[in-house]
């Protein structure tokens, strides 16, 4: 039993290695291409030649690219993402400052999409083919097609500008009021996907024998759905939460820009504008690593929910 878990987890970790290697390689190449001469790019055209030489030596910029890559990886392994000459601070420090707001926002948005999405999906599945079902399905497609940043502006227009219920933008002191609109915005895209997936997955499951059996026992429709159907319907829903991670990370730069949210996404956008390349590449790398590790967690969640995935060598 234990070795089964071990090998299942081991296989997934092993599959992770080439992806992480690919990510770092791509970011490294981007960085190299973007900088041309990194020392000069970092220090500016009028830099003191002596300082440029020192930087070159320090980062081995005169060595061949593969050697530079290995050295860069070593620094990465020590948690060194480089130095922002624009802000005169280590990139890791800058990212660490901006991470908590993004995490708050992402968690709140996930909560929004799961609660709203699963209730809408279950509601639609309970009365398939009715007007309510069609309305919810329509709303889900609409939610998936709405550009996040526009939705953010419209929510802000209604609830902040017109009604004045919530703050227009900003982080506040991390209070709930400031979090509501950004979380709704970022969660909306994914709410539609969760709703669709919950509905079709529930409709699939309710046709199965054991659900029919539960029904034949005389259980009420909601008990059947809640106790028996929902658990099995959870498997694809976990997948969808995994996909949702992509939506969250893609939506973060946009949502954070709309609401002046001091997170990683807005930092990334600002850094591109300032051509602060160490920060750009550091942020891109962090986003990718979070994405990959998030997907790993989803895989591991499968192991818990669905025993079938623990056995066998196939993915």
């Amino acid at each position, binding site marked *: 039993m234990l070795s089964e878990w071990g090998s299942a987890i081991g296989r997934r970790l092993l599959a992770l290695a*080439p*992806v992480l290697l*690919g*990510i770092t*390689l*791509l*970011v490294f190449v*981007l960085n190299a*291409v*973007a900088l041309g001469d990194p020392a000069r790019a970092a220090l500016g055209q009028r830099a003191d030649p002596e300082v440029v030489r020192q930087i070159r030596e320090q980062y081995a910029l005169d060595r061949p690219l593969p050697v530079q890559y290995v050295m860069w990886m070593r620094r990465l392994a020590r948690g060194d993402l480089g130095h922002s000459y624009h802000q005169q601070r280590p990139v890791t420090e800058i990212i660490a400052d901006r991470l908590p707001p993004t995490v708050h926002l992402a968690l709140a948005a996930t909560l929004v999409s799961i609660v709203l999405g699963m209730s809408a999906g279950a509601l639609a599945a309970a009365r398939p083919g009715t007007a309510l079902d069609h309305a919810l*399905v329509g709303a889900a*497609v*609409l939610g*998936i*097609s*709405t*550009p*996040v*940043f*526009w939705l953010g*502006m*419209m929510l*802000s*227009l209604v609830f902040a*500008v017109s009604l004045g219920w919530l703050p227009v933008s900003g982080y506040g002191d991390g209070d709930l009021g400031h979090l509501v609109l950004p979380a709704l915005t970022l969660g909306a895209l994914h709410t539609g996907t969760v709703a*669709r997936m919950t509905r*079709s997955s529930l*409709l699939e499951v309710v046709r199965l024998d054991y659900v029919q059996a539960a029904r034949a026992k005389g259980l009420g429709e909601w008990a059947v759905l809640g106790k028996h159907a929902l658990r099995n319907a959870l498997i694809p829903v976990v997948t969808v939460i995994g996909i949702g991670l*992509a939506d969250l*990370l*893609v939506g973060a*730069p*946009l949502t954070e*820009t*709309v609401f002046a949210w001091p997170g990683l*996404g807005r930092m*990334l*956008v600002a*850094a*591109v*504008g300032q*051509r602060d*390349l160490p920060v*750009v*590449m550091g*942020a*891109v790398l962090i*986003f*990718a690593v979070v*994405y*990959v590790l998030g997907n790993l967690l989803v895989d591991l969640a499968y192991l818990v929910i669905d025993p079938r995935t623990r056995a066998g060598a196939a993915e």
Partner: protein
Amino acid sequence: MIRRGAEAPRRRWRQARAHRGFLAGLSLVSLFALASALAPLLAPYDPRWVPTGDQAATLLAPGSQHALGTDVLGRDLLSRVLYAGRVTLSIGIGVELVAAAIGCLVGLVAGYFGGWLDGVLMRATDTVMAFPSLVLAIGLIAVFEEPGLEKVFLVLIALGWTTIARVVRAEVLSQKNREYVQAARAVGVPDSIVILRHLLPNCLGPLLVAATIGVGSNMVAEAGLSFLGLGAQPPTISWGAMLAEGQTFLTAAPWVAIFPGLALLLTVLGVNLLGDGLRDLLDPRFRKW
């Protein structure tokens, strides 16, 4: 499962006409494509014309003179929304044409030949897909000195081919051991002909579905990048760039943000409905939504 003969297309069309989502999507897409194509005829004003002097008309609310109002420079929003559609739609479709061609080639080669070639190509695909798309797009844009629409075009191609490659490869893998392919190879048909004449046609359904969805994501990505100031630069007009202006005047003149966003939303909705519809019609495995 694919039955050939004269009956098949006609039956498809009959099914398509009965599919409400597909029809709604087709109508929305045609409407916005036509409106953009005919922008020079339909637009009441020059989209870049800035009225001055006693004609000045900044941030006018929608009314009889300007159906959708004017922006901060007094430019007519209806005209701008129509012209901006050309940019967003051409990026959406143009990018997808190139990306689908690349992805198709990669998928066919990887799936058919397998081995180390498959390994390399699929690791490359995995790597690109390991990034949240917009974040990698922003990182790629940062490589260039100046942002611009032509860079958005290149960057979105660099991201877009991966989905297509995976779809086509999966389809090739499921087809290549069927008898008809084996038979063709057994009688000495060259690989290139097997790929183009036998495998490619069988990939077209899933390819079309994936490419349609791709057009939608390209448009959203372009709008997002332009909204962030990393895409279309003035004087190019795009819905995303208009929305960035709209945000500045959200309180004083909400219409500046409302209309370009609605246009984008309805076009993307149309493309998504079209993609879902095509999947229902072309792929018998998906029959629910």
